[in-house]
């Protein structure tokens, strides 16, 4: 900590700007394709993630068609159904949400929000994207290899993941593991950038406790991802060796198709530990950036400072730390020691405390705020409701005795879609509607946005609310066809058909959203530099969209936190972070 001598007349001396350090593109290729500018990389990440996400959306349609109308679609056989499940889950969790929040939002917002010109290692940042793209290409290629993609489920549990009988045993599983390994390598390159940029490239006056909560969320999630992804890396490498070279890290002695396999003595539980040591933090890797984005959206669109900023920051950090000691709650039915389960149930329920603090603070921010029901605000409200919903069923499943009968039913599917499917996607949409004007200089179309929001929000509930009920009935997950089963009444089949129709409609609404993204790029209303009247630094750039280097000649100086809305005694209803205090003109800042 260095105190800058502050003179009320002279102000704070301007930051020295190392112009030469900035990378300058020299051709079209290095400007738009092999670009080292974090903003371009962010857009590349986002487009790639959304493209592969559309594939996963289509897969969910196919699954819903099969579940809603079993027997009608003869081209979906049981093997394909398992492949659709696996690819849908893997793409959505890792290649869409993780990549979009950290690679997309992280790359665009971190440098702008902390007042930096770019990420600290632009070249590594560029490599990160290209390795990610390679991972996506390898993943997508599994649709076209002999045997198709793996059908092992997104958890890839051995021994079934690499035995015959599981679809994609030849190439699918190998390429899936290779793709995950590539993704982790690419992510590590990007993650180093996000962390070091937040730590080292903040502009003058931007203390850690003045960072917008979006940056806190992305920063903490990145730290978690850097520590958690190695577990998936270890598990993937070892599973790959089991599959390719016949080692027995995870593979027990077993008979396959009547013949004894070459494997022996390995522990499938070991894989589960490694997988979930990554897998649980992964939930928060996509939730924490969402928490941050929602905090900012609510504050801006309710014209009120965020309630309990410090508490919010510590809650993010506490959730991040706690999420590393809850992984085995995904393994209650693996035959673990009851005390082990008791320990993990306790830690799981403790996470509800910081999470509840965040929800209370969001609600208290809204309390007596000047709420503008803009599209980003609608999505933010939808996020809060959905996250609370999914969180509450999480309390059910966190308890061992409740989890055991509900495990492997549709209840679990409904729970995790609410908490880490719908909720983070609501934050993604809210974030896109909010920051699109900064990225493109134009507003997204309001009417299409309203349509997109209401269909997606109500439709998601039409899909996943009934699914809880089906789960309580005992309907199992991952079944291609439930058939005639005594405990499943005919009404449940009607419900399934209803959910499938809802899923088709919600999917269609996403096409409207994509159309809006493209249409508004050319025909959208001009946004100006700060259409929402937001105080945080990314809205104060001299150009919109921000130019190369973000800040023109001089870096901004930050005098306050990012949430000065409706400050008593001040004329405007917000004060930008770089607005000097009264009696100190902006010019006075550099005499």
């Amino acid at each position, binding site marked *: 900590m260095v105190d800058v001598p502050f003179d009320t007349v002279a102000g704070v001396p301007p930051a020295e700007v190392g112009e030469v350090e900035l990378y300058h593109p020299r051709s079209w290729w290095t400007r738009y394709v092999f670009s080292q500018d974090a903003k371009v990389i962010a857009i590349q990440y986002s487009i790639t993630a959304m493209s592969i996400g559309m594939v996963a959306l289509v897969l969910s349609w196919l699954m819903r068609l099969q579940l809603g109308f079993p027997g009608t679609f003869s081209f979906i056989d049981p093997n394909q159904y398992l492949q659709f499940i696996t690819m849908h889950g893997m793409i959505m969790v890792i290649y869409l949400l993780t990549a979009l929040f950290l690679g997309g939002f992280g790359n665009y917002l971190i440098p702008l929000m902390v007042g930096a010109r770019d990420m600290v*290692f632009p070249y590594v940042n560029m490599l990160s994207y290209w390795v990610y793209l390679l991972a996506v290409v390898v993943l997508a290629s599994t649709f076209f290899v002999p045997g198709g993609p793996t059908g092992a489920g997104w958890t890839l549990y051995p021994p079934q993941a690499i035995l015959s009988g599981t679809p994609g045993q030849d190439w699918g599983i190998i390429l899936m593991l290779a793709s995950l390994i590539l993704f982790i390598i690419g992510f590590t390159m990007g993650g180093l950038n996000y962390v070091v940029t937040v730590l080292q490239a903040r502009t003058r006056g931007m203390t850690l406790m003045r960072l917008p909560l979006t940056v806190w969320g992305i920063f903490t999630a990145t730290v978690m991802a850097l520590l958690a992804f190695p577990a998936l890396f270890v598990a993937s490498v070892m599973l790959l060796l089991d599959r390719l070279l016949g080692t027995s890290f995870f593979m027990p002695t077993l008979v396959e198709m009547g013949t004894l396999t070459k494997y022996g003595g390995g522990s499938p539980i070991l894989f589960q530990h490694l997988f979930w040591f990554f897998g649980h933090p992964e939930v928060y890797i996509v939730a924490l950036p969402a928490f941050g984005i929602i905090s900012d959206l609510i504050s801006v669109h309710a014209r009120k400072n965020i309630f309990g900023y410090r508490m919010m920051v510590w809650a993010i950090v506490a959730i991040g730390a706690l999420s590393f000691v809850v992984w085995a709650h995904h393994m209650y039915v693996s035959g673990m020691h009851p005390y082990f389960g008791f320990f993990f149930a306790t830690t799981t329920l403790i996470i509800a405390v910081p999470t509840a603090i965040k929800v209370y603070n969001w609600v208290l921010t809204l309390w007596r705020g000047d709420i503008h029901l803009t599209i980003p605000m609608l999505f933010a409200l939808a996020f809060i409701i959905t996250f609370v919903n999914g969180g509450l069923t999480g309390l059910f499943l966190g308890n061992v005795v409740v989890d055991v009968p509900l495990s492997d039913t549709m209840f679990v599917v409904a729970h995790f879609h609410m908490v880490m499917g719908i909720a983070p996607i609501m934050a993604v949409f809210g974030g896109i509607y909010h920051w699109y004007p900064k990225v493109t200089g134009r507003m997204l179309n309001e009417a299409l946005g309203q349509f997109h929001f209401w269909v997606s929000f109500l439709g998601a509930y039409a899909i996943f609310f009934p699914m809880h009920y089906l789960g309580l009935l005992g309907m199992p997950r991952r079944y291609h066809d439930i058939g005639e089963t005594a405990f499943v009444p005919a009404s449940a089949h009607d419900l399934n058909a209803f959910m499938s129709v809802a899923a088709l409609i919600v999917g269609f609404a996403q096409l409207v959203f994509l159309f809006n993204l493209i249409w508004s790029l050319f025909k959208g209303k001009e946004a100006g530099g700060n259409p929402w009247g937001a105080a945080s630094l990314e809205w104060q750039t001299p150009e919109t969209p921000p130019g190369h280097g973000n800040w023109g000649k001089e870096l901004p100086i930050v005098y306050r936190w990012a949430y000065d809305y409706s400050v008593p005694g001040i004329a405007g209803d917000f004060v930008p972070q770089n607005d000097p205090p009264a009696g100190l003109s902006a010019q006075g800042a550099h005499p």
Partner: protein
Amino acid sequence: MVDLREESTSSLPPAKIGLGVFLAVVGSLFALFISAYSMRMNLVDWRTLPVPALLWFNTGVLVLSSVALQWAYIAARRDDIQGISVGLCAGGASAVIFLVGQLLAWRQLSGAGYFLASNPANSFFYLITAVHGLHLMGGLVALGRTTAKVLRGAEASQIRLSVELCTIYWHFLLLVWLVLLGLLTGWTDNFVDICRQLLS
């Protein structure tokens, strides 16, 4: 309300912080390999494999490599370009010898019938040494680039940071290797047992 103190970002260069974060990631990776090892070794089919005597020689070479880089680092602080280039070359050469030694140790083991897939202890031995070796090879790329700059006539002040980062990375990999060696030779078995009993 308005606090104009600048909480300055720390004065360390970003690359050094970046290396620190990267070492945390690598440390986490090896910690997870070690946890997997200690869980797997408890199962009945585990047959500890004899540690080739060559590993002791390799360890000595890796220590020398670290010492040489420390030498280069000290030389860099004294602006002694000659010392830097000697230290870097000696460090790089001994790291290469270490890697060759590891490959020979593999050959000795497989020559004696300890193949990758014949026992989980063997699998872990090959896997962990391979991952450590790959990290060292990555370090050699960075070291090679730094050495190339020295040979092209860079000033000591221009490469001081690179030399320092290489040295930190080398010491880190030496530390990781010593921990792995303890694990692979069975020195740490008692410690692993204690940890396992605490957990179960």
